[in-house]
């Protein structure tokens, strides 16, 4: 158990994982972000395989900066909101790019939040923040723990007010995060991380 809350300085990448109830949670988390946003945000929302995701189109109208699907081998750009495509695992590489892979699903999920967060912990170390929101399975708990162990920042939606508490609770049980907050608090934390992000 840690006693000091990790500083909000020095974050260069934010990973957000969500499952059941996630879209509504994302609307609140990502509401009213400023147009001069700098941090790259990577969102992984569990969706059924074989269906095209419409998250990029939906959020393009709600976010005043670039919104893209995270493409294989694409460099991670500042000031961009990325969504993970369904049907493939998404990883962050050490050269600050994305990669996709077709390994077996993890926790019945492909993409898996655990795999994405673990790759980001490995690639970015203490410069990554992991956010975990509402959801009905255990995906993300291992990934968040690995971000914590790498010195990164971890934040979990308060299970008491999450649409489905299973996923955030599993993460808290696996490893106490730096922050346990309702969505409004996570939103403020996100703004703080971007404000403290050196250009």
């Amino acid at each position, binding site marked *: 158990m840690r006693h000091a809350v990790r500083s909000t300085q020095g974050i260069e990448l934010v990973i957000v994982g969500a499952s059941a109830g996630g879209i509504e949670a994302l609307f609140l988390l990502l509401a009213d972000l400023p147009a001069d946003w700098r941090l790259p945000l990577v969102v992984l929302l569990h969706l059924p395989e074989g269906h095209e995701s419409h998250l990029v189109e939906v959020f393009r109208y709600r976010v005043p900066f670039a919104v893209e699907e995270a493409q*294989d081998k694409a460099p991670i750009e500042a000031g961009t909101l990325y969504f993970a495509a369904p049907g493939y695992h998404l990883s962050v590489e050490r050269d600050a790019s994305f990669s996709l892979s077709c390994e077996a699903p993890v926790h019945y999920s492909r993409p898996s939040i655990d795999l994405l967060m673990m790759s980001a912990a490995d690639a970015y170390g203490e410069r990554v923040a992991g956010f975990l929101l509402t959801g009905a399975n255990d995906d993300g708990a291992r990934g968040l723990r690995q971000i914590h162990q790498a010195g990164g920042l971890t934040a979990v939606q308060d299970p008491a007010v999450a649409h489905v508490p299973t996923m955030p609770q599993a993460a808290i049980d696996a490893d106490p995060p730096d922050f346990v907050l309702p969505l409004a608090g996570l939103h403020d934390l996100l703004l703080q991380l971007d404000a403290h992000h050196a250009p």
Partner: protein
Amino acid sequence: MKGRHHVRDDGGAEARREAPPAAAPALAAQPPSDVDIELRLLMEAIYLKYNHDFRDYTGASQKRRVLYALSQMNLPSISALQERVLRDPNVFARLLQYLTVPVSEMFRDPSYFLALRRQVAPLLHTYPSVKVWVAGCSTGEEVYSLAILLHEEGLLKRTRIYATDINPDSLEKARQGIYALEAVRNYTVNYQRAGGVRAFSDYYTAAYDAARFDPQLCADVIFADHSLATDSVFAETQLVSCRNVLIYFNRQLQDRALGLFHDSLSHRGFLGLGAKESIDFSGYAGRFDVMARAERIFRKAG
């Protein structure tokens, strides 16, 4: 298991890359960890000893699979694995099963096969004989999918399919064409969405928990060991299907593979890639025309 003794023409390892090996990425987010160093040394050892080249595979996925292999093989470190791999070819043969990722489905992304059926098959009819290359065929699900499609379009009898992979165990499974019956039942929906008009069960014989696909589908399929990382072009083809293989390669190796496809394809030949694969970031972006963007079907530029 010995090193690879595949057919190789004179391009060979010399043609593998012009640039010196092991150049550090320009934008390294983190200095290499001990595990990264061990991983790179392992891939170098595998290349020198067995001529299997995994040095230009994408980092995160490869690292995950090697670490998983460690846990399954009860070894304490990648260095320990390297020592075993160097001295015992059987250990390498086992590791190879972790280093390659099997494709899981028949008619995965039905819209791809539907586009092949509707847009490509009519053009293939204009050739007296057709050659198709399924590069990275793994355990063969895609080979049987294509053979069924070509059969239904009246093309199979004049088509030769080259199905290549680097994993001998996968190639053997592909040759046998036996898949879990439960999985095959799930493929039926894919088959129908891909424009299939028959009963999917016409193509296989079910026994116990397994489905064996009709060997006639593969009467003119050549299953062969071929590496996109080290081998050269072996035939002129009209269609190359290489899906969810390039995602495991770094850009340099992607370019090498796309170069092989470009060289293999005849004038205005067709290239099919995985649903999330792109040539936009490659050196070949201008050398293929987009035929069906969402389905990732391209055509060699004239």
